[in-house]
């Protein structure tokens, strides 16, 4: 008996101790009072932090009124909801087309395709390096037939299509899209969409050999110039602040570096004789929304105000829509972790909320399996549903800039603006963004910041559930399954490309390739001749390679294959 009693007593003791352990969090306080980017906050903000009476008109103003801090449209989402635009790119052009169609059927409102790494590098599917990689991270488009397959039965004059690709293959992408549209009889001035043509940032996405700076800038600005003259509804660049942010930099650096890059393009377009009122209305940005809700909203508001001022005061814009900071948001992929993966759904929902509170024009929500694999059909749908719950259930669409006038958010907007100015002055001091990239000043910044972010997690300064707090055993399987890219998919694409190359009329191809080469030599805009070359079945690698050679680079970024063309 006594033995049993003793055991019971011990059990009770253990239990008592555990409960104390379990509930020690009852009195817990947050571990940090800094924003995600490390800005200090006060416990409360008051009229002392933001004087509405004095500053409203000048610094904030109503949505739709300069400096557009509260939004670029007076009625914001009452006029039109944001575009629900999930990124798609998987396997062959046909596989990608199928997923695009599926998401459109489920209520997606914008099409969005991403190139695979081979296409981004400007490598044809039959390139030796492409063998194991075609279709793994996106879609490979080598020739016009691929673009036809991707766009099959889709009314290009009715939809809005975002083409995510890298430089300088973006010029081939644009040529392929235009060639297909023209072939199908569409008036290209009616096409609506965007191309992620941000030539200076692609060195930071792993494409350095394919993206020499001078060539990338030249070809990128060819797209911008051509679209300004011929495709008035097309967003010819989306300056990709998102990719930079994902390297580990702060919200402040994201905007400062992005603006630095954007100004390189504006300077070049002005040098080519265009006025900012002509091209300004179709300039756009790709912005990250990380996990700190108020910081992201304040960042977006500061960016909107600063951009309007730059365009008006620095570049002399007079048209209001040339002063608008238009942006799409990609929720933060690098904030998502494979540990306890369903938590990512929650993270994405908060990030999407901050994008919408910030007045986003177009949104991609990451799928919860972002740190695991390409999205499965179910996880892709879940990401779209995250947007739809936000849009149709929560009431966030009723009012423009609902956080405007918050002492905290207004004060944080001011603070972030000031910090962005400081970083921009730093960029100026190294000779502007082109120099900052050329001299690898930016590389060093990105690497240093990435390590700092990791250390913040390592030392517990930043908490990530499942990573450094509330950890649990590794899950046995991925909740909604794993997306695989069938190897047959890639092999089929490679064989198709070889077959297309074999079947084409070489004489017709040579005429267009010679024209492309001559235009490149003469320093003319290369897009018109790429469009014609595409129609004659020239490939991505051939077009970009030919222009590379003119600029003194090896035909092949990987320096393995030589040009099949003999021009002299």
């Amino acid at each position, binding site marked *: 008996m006594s033995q049993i009693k003793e055991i019971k007593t011990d059990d009770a003791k253990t239990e008592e101790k555990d409960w104390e352990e379990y509930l020690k969090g009852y009195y817990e306080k947050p571990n940090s009072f800094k924003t995600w980017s490390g800005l200090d906050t006060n416990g409360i903000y008051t009229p002392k932090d933001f004087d509405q009476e004095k500053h409203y008109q000048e610094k904030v103003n109503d949505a739709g009124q300069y400096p557009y801090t509260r939004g670029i449209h007076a009625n914001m989402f009452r006029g039109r909801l944001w575009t629900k635009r999930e990124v798609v790119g998987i396997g062959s052009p046909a596989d990608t087309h199928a997923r695009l169609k599926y998401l459109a059927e489920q209520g997606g409102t914008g099409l969005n395709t991403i190139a695979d*790494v081979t296409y981004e590098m400007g490598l044809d599917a039959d390139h030796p390096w492409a063998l*194991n990689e075609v279709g*793994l991270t996106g879609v490979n488009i080598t020739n016009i037939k691929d673009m036809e397959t991707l766009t099959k039965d889709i009314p290009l004059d009715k939809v809005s299509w975002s083409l995510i690709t890298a430089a300088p293959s973006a010029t081939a992408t644009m040529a392929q899209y235009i060639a297909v549209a023209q072939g199908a009889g569409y008036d290209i001035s009616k096409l609506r969409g965007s191309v992620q043509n941000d030539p200076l940032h692609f060195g930071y996405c792993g494409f350095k050999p394919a993206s020499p700076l001078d060539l990338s800038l030249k070809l990128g600005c060819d797209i911008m110039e051509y679209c300004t003259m011929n495709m008035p509804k097309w967003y010819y660049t989306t300056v990709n602040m998102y990719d930079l942010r994902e390297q580990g930099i702060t919200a402040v650096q994201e905007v400062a570096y992005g603006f630095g890059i954007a100004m390189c393009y504006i300077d070049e377009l002005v040098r080519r004789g265009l006025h900012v009122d002509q091209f300004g209305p179709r300039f756009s940005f790709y912005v990250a929304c990380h996990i700190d809700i108020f910081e992201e909203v304040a960042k977006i508001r500061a960016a909107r105000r600063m951009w309007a001022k730059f365009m008006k005061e620095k570049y002399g814009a007079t048209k209001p829509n040339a002063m608008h900071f238009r942006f799409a948001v990609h929720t933060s992929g690098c904030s998502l972790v*494979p*540990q306890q993966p369903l938590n990512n759904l929650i993270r994405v929902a908060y990030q999407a909320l901050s994008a919408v509170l910030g007045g986003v024009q177009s949104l991609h929500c990451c799928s919860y399996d972002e740190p695991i*694999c390409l999205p499965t059909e179910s996880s892709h749908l879940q990401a779209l549903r995250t947007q739809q719950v936000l849009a149709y259930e929560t009431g966030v669409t009723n009012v423009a800039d609902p956080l405007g006038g918050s002492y905290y958010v207004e004060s944080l907007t001011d603070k972030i603006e000031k910090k962005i100015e400081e970083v921009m002055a730093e960029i100026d001091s190294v000779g502007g963004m082109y120099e900052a990239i050329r001299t690898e000043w930016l590389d060093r910044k990105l690497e240093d910041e990435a390590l700092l972010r990791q250390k913040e997690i*390592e030392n517990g300064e930043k908490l990530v559930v*499942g*990573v450094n707090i509330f950890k649990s055993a590794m899950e046995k399987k991925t909740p909604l399954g794993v997306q695989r*890219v069938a190897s047959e998919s890639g092999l089929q694409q490679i064989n198709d490309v070889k077959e297309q190359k074999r079947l084409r009329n070489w004489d017709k191809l040579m005429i267009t390739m010679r024209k492309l080469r001559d235009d490149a030599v003469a320093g003319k805009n290369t897009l018109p001749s790429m469009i014609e070359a595409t129609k004659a079945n020239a490939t991505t690698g051939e077009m970009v390679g030919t222009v590379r050679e003119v600029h003194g680079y090896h035909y092949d970024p990987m320096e393995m294959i030589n040009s099949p063309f003999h021009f002299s």
Partner: protein
Amino acid sequence: MKNNKQIKVIITKVGLDGHDRGAKIVVSLLKEAGMEVVYLGMFNQVEDIIQAVVDEDADVLGLSYLSGEQLIFTPKIVKEMKKNELNDVLLIVGGTIPVEDIPLLEEMGVERVFRAGSLSGEFIEYIEKNIKK
């Protein structure tokens, strides 16, 4: 286990995968932990990697995958390691790897997989305890 000799690690990207933020962070953290690290960077094919392991006489080979190519390249690397009698090199993998792939990779000959979100303490301790030379 080594007797106080500095551990030598090769970290590399494989193929065209351009996501190198994680690999570079791992390189810095291993260096801070006192290891000698050779980072091969991007755009390495299997033979480049094997050659580097031989030339550097590395104790550890770390492969970073973030584009879904782990099941394609790893068996090729393992095969070449065997051919070159690199059985005493500790092979580890990091990146965006589905849990379903971990047993597959281990069966191929990978000793340990560190998914995104792993903390440096885990992999530093693992390497220190498990090197074979």
